[in-house]
Every structure is written in structure tokens, then in C-alpha cells.
């Protein structure tokens, strides 16, 4: 009984496997790849541009994530509640924090797999004789992965709020779209009409976009990653609070 494996790893393995045990994973991966491919090649016309700049490819990631990430996260806790397995999971001998981290990391790893499969895009650039900037590619991929994690953490939290996955999905999309666009002029202008300037500046400082943009420019700034990490920690803490409250409610 004392050769305890790491509980986070145990939860992580089960959760990640559960994606691939059902058709969900394959449907998601195919849709994700088709969507990024379509937007990159047909809308941004990456190929016709004849340049090896990966910007048109990364540009679309936040918008694909906007739908894709909540679709991955919505089941995380809502499904456990609906089927009652939450009771099973939370009475096993590990802490709530370990369960939350294990499940979150599994979903993030799944997003990482999806993102990893898009490496065919830069690969095709190289095969076609282009020389994409390795630094930009690296920081772009890291930024994209960080952004996915932050959006996922939001979806993780919203999936604890209801046992209905649709509610969780819609809430996550709304929160995500707000945080993606919070720094965007049309939104800040709208906010400026109802809120004092300081509040507008604070809200727009929460936006994902400036941090993601700096990654796309090939700048590996620790502050951007600290930002994504702090969003993740904050949302997972909120997840913990909601689940803990439900226990003692």
C-alpha cells in the first residue's frame, strides 16, 4: 500500500487515455488540423505568398482555440458530475489539488498533441525550399501552447459550474472571447463609454493578445509566459474553490 505511484500521473494517464478510448480525440484532431490548414492556406494564402514567414499560420491559432479548447475542456468536470464518477474520483486517496492538476495536464497534453501535428506546416515550408526562422517558430509554438493552456484553465473552471456541458462550453467561449479581445480597440472603446479610464486600462491589460503577439514576433519574454502561468494558476485555484465549496456546501 506504500509503493504509492504519483497520483497526478495516475489521473493524468487515465484522463488522456479516455480521450483516445472514445472517438472524441480523433474527431477533434481531424477538425483542428483541417481548420488550421484551411485558415492558413486558403484564407491567409500562405502558399501563394511564397514567403517562409509563419505569421499567417500562428495568427489563426487564438480563433481556432476559441472553439476548440472549450470543446475539449467542457467535459473535464461536468461529465464527472453528471455520471457520478466525481464521487469515485474524490474518495480515492489523493487530494483535490492532485486530481485537478492531473486532469488539467491531460487535457493540455491533448492540446499539445493537436498542436504538435501542425508541425507539418513549417515542415512543408522547409520542404518547399523556404527557410522559416527557427526562433520565431519556437516562440510561436511555445506562445501558442501557453495560450492554449490559459484558455483551457478558463474552460476547466467553467466546467465545474454546471453538470451540463453545453453551459460550460458557452461560458468558456464567452469568457475566452472577452479575454482575447479585451485589448482590442472596438472593445476598449465600448468599455470606455461605461467605465473609468483606469478600469479600461486594467481590463485591457488582462488581454491575451499582447502576450501572444510578442511570442509571434519571435520574442521569448519570460513575462509573457509568467502571464499565461498566472492565468492557469488563478483559474485552477478557482476550480479548486468551486469543487471544495461543493463538498462542504
Amino acid at each position: 500500500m506504500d509503493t504509492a505511484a504519483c497520483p497526478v500521473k495516475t489521473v493524468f494517464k487515465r484522463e488522456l487515455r479516455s480521450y483516445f478510448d472514445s472517438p472524441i480525440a480523433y474527431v477533434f484532431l481531424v477538425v483542428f488540423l483541417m481548420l488550421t490548414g484551411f485558415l492558413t492556406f486558403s484564407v491567409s494564402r500562405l502558399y501563394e505568398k511564397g514567403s517562409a514567414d509563419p505569421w499567417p499560420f500562428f495568427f489563426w491559432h487564438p480563433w481556432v482555440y476559441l472553439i476548440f479548447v472549450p470543446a475539449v475542456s467542457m467535459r473535464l468536470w461536468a461529465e464527472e458530475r453528471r455520471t457520478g464518477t466525481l464521487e469515485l474520483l474524490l474518495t480515492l486517496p489523493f487530494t483535490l489539488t492532485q486530481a485537478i492538476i492531473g486532469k488539467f495536464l491531460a487535457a493540455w497534453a491533448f492540446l499539445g498533441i493537436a498542436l504538435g501535428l501542425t508541425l507539418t506546416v513549417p515542415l512543408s515550408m522547409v520542404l518547399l525550399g523556404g527557410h522559416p526562422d527557427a526562433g520565431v517558430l519556437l516562440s510561436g509554438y511555445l506562445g501558442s501552447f501557453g495560450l492554449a493552456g490559459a484558455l483551457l484553465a478558463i474552460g476547466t473552471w467553467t466546467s465545474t459550474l454546471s453538470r451540463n456541458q453545453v453551459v460550460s462550453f458557452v461560458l468558456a467561449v464567452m469568457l475566452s472571447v472577452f479575454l482575447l479581445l479585451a485589448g482590442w480597440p472596438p472593445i476598449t472603446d465600448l468599455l470606455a463609454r461605461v467605465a473609468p479610464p483606469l478600469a479600461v486600462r486594467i481590463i485591457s491589460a488582462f488581454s491575451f493578445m499582447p502576450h501572444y503577439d510578442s511570442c509571434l514576433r519571435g520574442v521569448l519574454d519570460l513575462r509573457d509566459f509568467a502571464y499565461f502561468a498566472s492565468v492557469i494558476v488563478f483559474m485552477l485555484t478557482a476550480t479548486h474553490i468551486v469543487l471544495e465549496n461543493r463538498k462542504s456546501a
Partner: protein
Amino acid sequence: MLEAHSLNKWFDRIHAVKDVSFRVEQGEVLGFLGPNGAGKSTTMRMLTGFLTPSSGTARICGHDILAAPIEARKRIGYLPENAPVYDDMTVLGFLRFIAEARGLSGVAGTTHLRKAVELSHLDGVLNQPIDTLSKGFRQRVCLAQAILHDPPVLILDEPTDGLDPNQKHVVRTMIQSMAATKAIILSTHILEEVEAVCTRVLIIANGSLVANGTPASLKQQSEWAGAVDMTFPENTGDLTALFKGLASCKRVEKQTQRYLLFPHAPGRLPQETTALLSAHHLSPLAFSVTEGRLDEVFRTLTTPAGKTSKTP
């Protein structure tokens, strides 16, 4: 092995569990009885750590569920109500996950897993996805999950709910086979089950414990315990007044030629009756002393106006 100390649970303004205390020792099978919504599941959820008590606590093999929740949970096997399991996994995959979560890996994990599978009769379905299984199998998968780490304390919330009589029998046999080495709590509202497997019964109504004793001692509380049931030939006159004169007789019920004599307390009534019968040269067609009835005790204790006993 398990001690609950004045457990209380409030849901907003509803006092769902009120000051519940009890102990369960090794070798005991404690039947947790009560109407739906009486607080059985809530109590079990507090013991297993799924809900936090509003006040009070419990100790599992000496480990406090609030101060040392992980140590306490390690010693519990829990079958939640409706036997939730991860549907998309195979039986084997699911049990491997539980083994790992219980810290059982490698050889130890395989040994435990094999034993649980054998006890729950799951050999034939190990590689099937759980969502293709019938309710009886799902229940057994969840039971296998609960006993996998051979816990000293087993908490089973309605283990036979929704099963057919054969499946119920299998589950009861499993419980009995494990009873000697464990402390078992099971909730149910099937009274025959209590008589079949439990060594002690707790009855809970509106969140409070209203009875705690062996099934036999509870039956003694029944109005039917030691009552006399007689039927006389057609031409016998009315004997009600005669029987009412017996010292131990509390009440007489008459249905045509059948008489039911209820005692003040189980004991002397049958002898007194036979003495009276021979003194008056009366010979009934049928004469029997009834046992106490758990369902009647249950009804009396769990309903405000439960004092309505009907003849069968």
C-alpha cells in the same frame, strides 16, 4: 475500526444529518436503514470524504477523516450509490486505474486485481468496455473497485439496488464471505437483506438515529413479537372478551374466526393462552406464535404516524 462522532450536515437551511454517532468493529456488518432522503447517503459521503461534515468527525482505523483524510481514505473501500464507473474504459483498464490510484503497482497490483475479479465474478468481461455491460455487471465492477485494495472498512451504498434476485444473491454472498475480516457498512431499504446479512442495524429517520441494535432485538420491539395467531371452527362463539381477560394481552384483533392476540411485551402470552384454551376446552384449528416484524418496527420508527399495524 470506524467511529463516527456526532456527525452533522447542513445543506443551506436543511439539517440533513443530525448528531449521528456510532461504531463499527471488525466482523460486523452494519445495516444502515432509513427511508429515501433520511440521510443515509449523506452520512456515507461524509465518512468517505466526498462531503465535509458541518460539525463532528469520524475515525477510520484511528485516522481522523478531517485531520488525515488521505490516510483514512486508504483504509476505506467505497461503493457509491448507483455504482458510478468510467463507462468508456474496459473493465480491466478501469480496475488497473483503481489499483494504481490505490498505490498498487506491479506484482502486488496484479495479485489484488486478480483476487477482486475472482470475488466479483468478472472473469468473462475483463476486456469489454463498461458501457456494454448490464446493470448487474456494472454494480460488480464498482464493487470490485471497492474491495481491490482489501480495505479494513467497506462502505456500500445500496449495493443490491436495481439487481435481479440472482444478482442480489451473488452480491450478498460476496458481502458475507468478506464479513469476518472487515468492518462493513451497507445501506439498503430492503428489509429482508438486513435479516440476511447484517449483524447490527441502524435506523435513521429525518437525519437522526432512531434505533441501533441487532435485527433480532429490533424485531422484539415489534407489536408482533410473541403475538398469538389462532383460528377457530365456524361454530365457535365470540371469544374476544375471554382473551381480553389475559394478564399479558394488550389487544385482541378479530377477523371472523381468526383471533390475533398482541402482548404488552413478548414472553408469557402463548403459555397463558394455551392454559386458557385447555381450561375452556377450546381447540383452535390453527395456533401459532408470530415473530417480530422488521418492516413494522421500521415503519413505526420512521414515520410520525407509524403506529398503524395491519393484519396480513
